[in-house]
């Protein structure tokens, strides 16, 4: 909707959306200057659950930081731990056996699907539809069960190790994953009918919260948010890591720049992730899951290392500045939602609060990841 014609600065009021608000999915606060239902100005206030993971990364040895990374993003935790192990492997020059890389890719993609499913449910709930959340959670539950069977935990995984994995996958997992793929495909069709085609849903999202490609670039937005603005950018393709070059998959891109485009990107991405899982299970080589020789104590040589991975929310980067000791000298986490959320302040100006919150939902926020 267009901006209000007259804004009288003496007649606005301040609305605190959050830190406890159903639409912010956690403890995020947006201070909104409102003119009736229209937002005149918004300022995001962060830091309610800031835990200083970067300092923890400097105080702990490299293996001790492993569980921290999954606490960044409780929905797509494996993507973040993947980034961490890849960064340390790059820094310390550790070779990873192929089987381990394949299992990593499969589990990361499963986790991505789980994250998108939960986002889907929560997003539709933001718009007032409750039932899709339950269906999405039911499907997600199968993924969590599978991942629990191999990693031992349901959300905050600590599964990857420098050089490989904590333990190998078994036949049950492969069978369950193979059964899950057609199941989810069926469910996706159901969601199409229930949500994507729904006229109320479309009317709420079409043309709402436009984010131009130029704006994405200025703010450094990545992931589905950028892809919904017509930017063909996915770290898995643009800057291939792990075994992703071996897989045949597409990057869904939509050019509408609105909330519906971001929604569609994520829905299509689930299908692409399923394709990767399918191929991964097919190509899964035999072999060890840990390298034969691995330094007992991980001490990367002096230097400055960077590793980016594509998580469920966008490009996640880790910078490790090593001084040659067993602790990192500097441990920087570049979280994707941080940049994506930053656009909200500018993008929501002149919008109505309903639309602004619908757009906020389409950004797929996970607050612990912003606050770190």
């Amino acid at each position: 909707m267009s901006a209000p014609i007259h804004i009288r600065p003496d007649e606005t009021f301040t609305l605190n959306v959050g830190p406890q608000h159903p639409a912010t999915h956690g403890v995020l606060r947006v201070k909104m200057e409102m003119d009736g239902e229209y937002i005149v100005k918004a300022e995001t206030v962060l830091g309610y659950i800031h835990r200083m993971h970067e300092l923890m990364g400097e105080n702990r040895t490299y293996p001790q930081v492993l569980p921290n990374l999954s606490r960044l993003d409780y929905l797509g935790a494996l993507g973040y731990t993947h980034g961490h192990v890849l960064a340390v492997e790059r820094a310390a020059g550790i070779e990873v056996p192929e089987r381990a890389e394949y299992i990593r890719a499969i589990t990361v993609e499963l986790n991505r699907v789980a994250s998108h499913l939960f986002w889907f449910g929560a997003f539709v709930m933001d718009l007032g539809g409750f039932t899709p959340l339950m269906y999405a959670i039911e499907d997600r539950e199968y993924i969590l069960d599978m991942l629990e069977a191999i990693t031992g935990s349901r959300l905050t995984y600590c599964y990857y190790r420098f050089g490989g994995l904590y333990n190998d996958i078994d036949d049950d997992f492969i069978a369950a994953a193979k059964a899950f793929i057609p199941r989810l495909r069926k469910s996706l069709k159901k969601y199409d009918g229930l949500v994507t085609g729904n006229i109320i849903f479309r009317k709420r999202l079409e043309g709402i919260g436009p984010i131009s490609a130029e704006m994405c670039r200025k703010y450094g937005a990545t992931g589905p948010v950028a892809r919904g603005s017509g930017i063909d950018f996915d770290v898995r393709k643009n800057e291939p890591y792990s075994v992703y070059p071996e897989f045949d998959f597409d990057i869904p891109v939509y050019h509408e720049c609105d909330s519906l485009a971001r929604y569609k990107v994520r829905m299509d991405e689930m299908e692409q992730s399923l394709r990767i899982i399918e191929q991964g299970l097919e190509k899964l080589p035999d072999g060890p899951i840990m390298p034969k020789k691995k330094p007992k104590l991980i001490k990367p040589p002096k230097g400055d290392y960077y590793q980016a991975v594509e998580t469920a929310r966008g490009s996640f980067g880790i910078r490790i500045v090593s001084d040659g000791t067993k602790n990192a000298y500097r441990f920087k986490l570049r979280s994707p939602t941080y940049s994506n959320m930053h656009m909200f302040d500018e993008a929501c100006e002149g919008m109505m609060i309903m639309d602004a919150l619908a757009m906020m939902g389409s950004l797929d926020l996970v607050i612990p990841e912003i606050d770190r």
Partner: protein
Amino acid sequence: MGAYFSEIFRGLQSLAIGMGITFKEFFQPVVTVPYPYKTIKMSARYRGHIELIENEEGTPNCVACGMCQRACPSGCISLASKSVEYEVEVKGEMKTKKKKVLTKYNLNFTTCSLCGSCVESCNFGAIEFSKEYNLASSRKEDFHFDLLERLKERNS
């Protein structure tokens, strides 16, 4: 004008499709587990808090090397040991040797992040994950576990 009516019609159609889907789901079986009445089995690799493993003699496998303590990122394990002299027969001779015996193994479960570093770092197979997940209390002290005590309780 045509577009106006076709939009209304297509809108209504999409609503009908959605209602059809929920109608079908209405008759599907329930998928949730009524938790306190029914529980599901934990998977084999489920990570609960850690427990000590005993050997055949009923004493813990632990040699109090402290590897788990060092590996733990949140410092939630504290253990103590004392040296005990014991005699072994080496080449027909009785020799006194010293060995460490575990006297205290406390787990502060309130700060544990269940990462599994302790179990992974243990070279003696002395600790394992329990399958316990029904832990609830309103007091912090209830989660300061004395694992040696728990081991004794399990044996008795």
